[in-house]
């Protein structure tokens, strides 16, 4: 929530000493409001004022980091209800649920599979983020052993689902950096808060209603526990969806601090059907989940969820593009075929990975279409014969290959005639429509 310069000025020392680099406290306050300065540039500002200002300028939904280093997960800091209003910022994290009653070998297998389910798509690495270890046995020793085994098998940060004593016991054996403690409730609030403070770890808060949730987080905030994650306690799709909408709105539109935290959701505890679990997870990915806990992250489900998350969290104002030019793939040489496509990252990614997969050496020509896909660019007049011809002619393609043939996408077959006219001396061949048909097509060329 932005503060005005005047509002900030009220809390300044008003001595106009100039040590901040501007002549007056008012000028400094103005600069601060405009984002051109930071508060620590004034050595005299009081602690109370600092806290107040930090509070007022804090994001409406607090950013919370779980874990440390390469595998740390940051959630929260969202600013809008609908992605087209700006963008969604910190993608929801997927957590695999492991219970300490499960067979150790089965757990090891699941974790190995989870680690393996890592993919690359449109220049992003897609994977799960957390493992939630639950003290289902009620036995602290079992929990301790399970946490040790999980932490030994995978680098992903953990969510520790147990009572404070069991968590403390487990951490005494396995030191973890910023695990998410799950969860403070009305019954254990003081003990959990003390533990979170001692460990400097983020804390989940579980309540039976939104009323109670707000009370608990306000209390925790008062105790100095700030890195919170909310669990409104609902375990049906309908109620959870409603809670997610309410909490996001309360934080963004009503600026209710007690609700200004990311949210943890539990498809794993809402259904026993594996496919329905994936759907619940999809809904919480779309509508405001910060962490999504699942029992089943088998590749066919995990990959679909990762792609959905990537889609939803793509910045709508910035189509991802790649640079224009001819790229050799699989060690293309002077005899290799030449394919033409657009510079929309998604199109480029799909086409280039099919060519790579075919193992056939080929040149891929990327036409600058302002980041539009094949048909979109064609309809917008950016992937049309004169532009493609100019691209080919101005490039050094003629010196790279001995033949004079270019292959265009099947979906724009209609431009082949005109392109051939514009590209004197070149033959234009229409390729298949879908990139997935490219390997067979390229192999048949030989």
């Amino acid at each position: 929530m932005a503060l005005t310069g005047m509002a900030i000025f009220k809390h300044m020392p008003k001595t106009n000493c100039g040590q901040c680099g501007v002549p007056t406290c008012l000028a400094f306050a103005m600069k601060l409001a405009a984002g051109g300065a930071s508060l620590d540039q004034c050595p005299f500002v009081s602690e109370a004022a600092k806290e107040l200002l930090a509070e007022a300028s804090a994001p409406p939904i607090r950013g919370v980091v779980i874990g440390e280093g390469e595998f740390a997960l940051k959630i929260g800091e969202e600013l809008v209800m609908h992605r087209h209003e700006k963008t969604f910022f910190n993608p929801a994290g997927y957590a695999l649920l492991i219970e300490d009653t499960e067979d150790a070998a089965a757990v090891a297998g699941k974790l190995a599979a989870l680690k393996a389910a890592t993919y690359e798509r449109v220049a992003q690495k897609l994977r799960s983020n957390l493992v939630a270890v639950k003290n289902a046995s009620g036995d602290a020793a079992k929990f301790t052993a399970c946490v040790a085994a999980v932490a030994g098998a995978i680098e992903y940060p953990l969510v520790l689902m147990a009572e404070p004593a069991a968590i403390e016991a487990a951490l005494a054996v396995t030191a973890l950096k910023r695990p998410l403690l799950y969860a403070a409730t009305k019954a254990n609030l003081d003990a959990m808060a003390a533990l979170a403070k001692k460990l400097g770890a983020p804390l989940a808060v579980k309540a039976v209603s939104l009323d109670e949730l707000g009370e608990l987080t306000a209390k925790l905030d008062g105790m100095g526990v700030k890195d919170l994650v909310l669990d409104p306690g609902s375990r049906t799709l309908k109620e959870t969806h409603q809670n997610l909408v309410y909490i996001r709105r309360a934080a963004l539109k009503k600026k209710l601090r007690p609700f200004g935290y990311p949210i943890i959701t539990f498809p794993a505890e809402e259904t026993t059907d594996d496919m329905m679990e994936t759907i619940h997870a999809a809904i919480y990915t779309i509508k405001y989940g910060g962490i999504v806990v699942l029992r089943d992250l088998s590749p066919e489900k995990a990959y679909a969820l990762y792609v959905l998350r990537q889609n939803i969290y793509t910045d709508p104002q910035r189509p991802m593009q790649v640079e224009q030019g001819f790229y050799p793939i699989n060690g293309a040489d002077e005899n290799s075929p030449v394919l033409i496509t657009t510079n929309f990252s998604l199109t480029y990614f799909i086409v280039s990975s099919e060519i790579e997969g075919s193992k056939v050496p080929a040149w891929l020509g990327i036409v600058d279409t302002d980041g539009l896909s094949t048909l979109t660019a064609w309809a917008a007049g950016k992937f049309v014969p004169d532009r493609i011809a100019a691209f080919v002619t101005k490039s050094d393609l003629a010196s790279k290959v001995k033949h004079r043939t270019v292959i265009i996408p099947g979906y724009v077959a209609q431009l082949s005639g005109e392109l051939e006219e514009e590209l004197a001396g070149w033959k234009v061949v229409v390729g298949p429509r879908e990139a997935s048909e490219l390997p067979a097509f390229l192999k048949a060329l030989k």
Partner: protein
Amino acid sequence: MAFQAPVETSTAKIRELTLGTKKTVTVGGQNALAFHSFEGTLPNGPKIAMEVYDTTPADWADELKRAIGDVWGDPVAWAKKCEGEFGADLICLQLAGTDPNGANRSVADAVATVKAVAEAISVPLMVYGSGNSDKDAELLKAVAEATQGKNVIIGLAVEENYKSIGAAAMGFGAKVSGETPIDVNMAKQLNILLTNLGVPLDALLIDPSTGALGYGLEYCFSIHERIKLAALKQNDAMLQSPTIANLGKEVWRAKEAKISQADAPQWGDGRKRGIIWETLTATAVMMAGADILIMRHPEAVKLIRKTIAELGA
């Protein structure tokens, strides 16, 4: 501190359209965003139309053929199975075979198929052309005439042929689905053009184009959301038509939906993968506000139906 629910009510609502005659289906009518039953009324919820093709599709995934089974290639039996066994709310008959660049079936042939399917089913019928705008103009006029009194949806009307299709719909009492490419203003403009022709507003549906999961879904998601926000929060009458997401077709083009486990072991169970791809695409557009989902795989349909029930439309 008691939590004050931040409800946002709307005085505007989506136009309520009743389709079909024998077993009617009503869409629209809601005055809140998708599944926001906590702040409005959602009398109907999203409905599922299942696709049936006039000619045997050449390039469908094996999993689809398996799931559709013995009726594959027989539009009448296929439509009956969708209604009886798969529980489709509507049937969307795709006259892909009429494409002049494909099988080029004649209008008369296609109309015979339409009539046979219309007779065989009780649920409402949607009839789509091949997407060739000239042929569709001629074809859909004949379709509207042949199905007069059955309260069908014809489509897709596009910029190039909306006049003929709009006139046919008006003349024979059909509803029209108009397609525009992922653009709120274009969707609105097409509805304005159709109403200027004289097509009543309560005969119009909006198809804002669909991109599948991983293939432009984000654009499609946001266009559905923006249409619903404009309709409900800005009371934009031209965008208050129920919306359609023609997603089965897009999903099953995607490699991830089609490829077998043997060819892509890293992506897991090949059979479930296609179903999940369709289910998640449908989930996303439904959460964004789509009123009719055009789908293919019977198991994906079942899962979406269950999701709708759980969310409590």
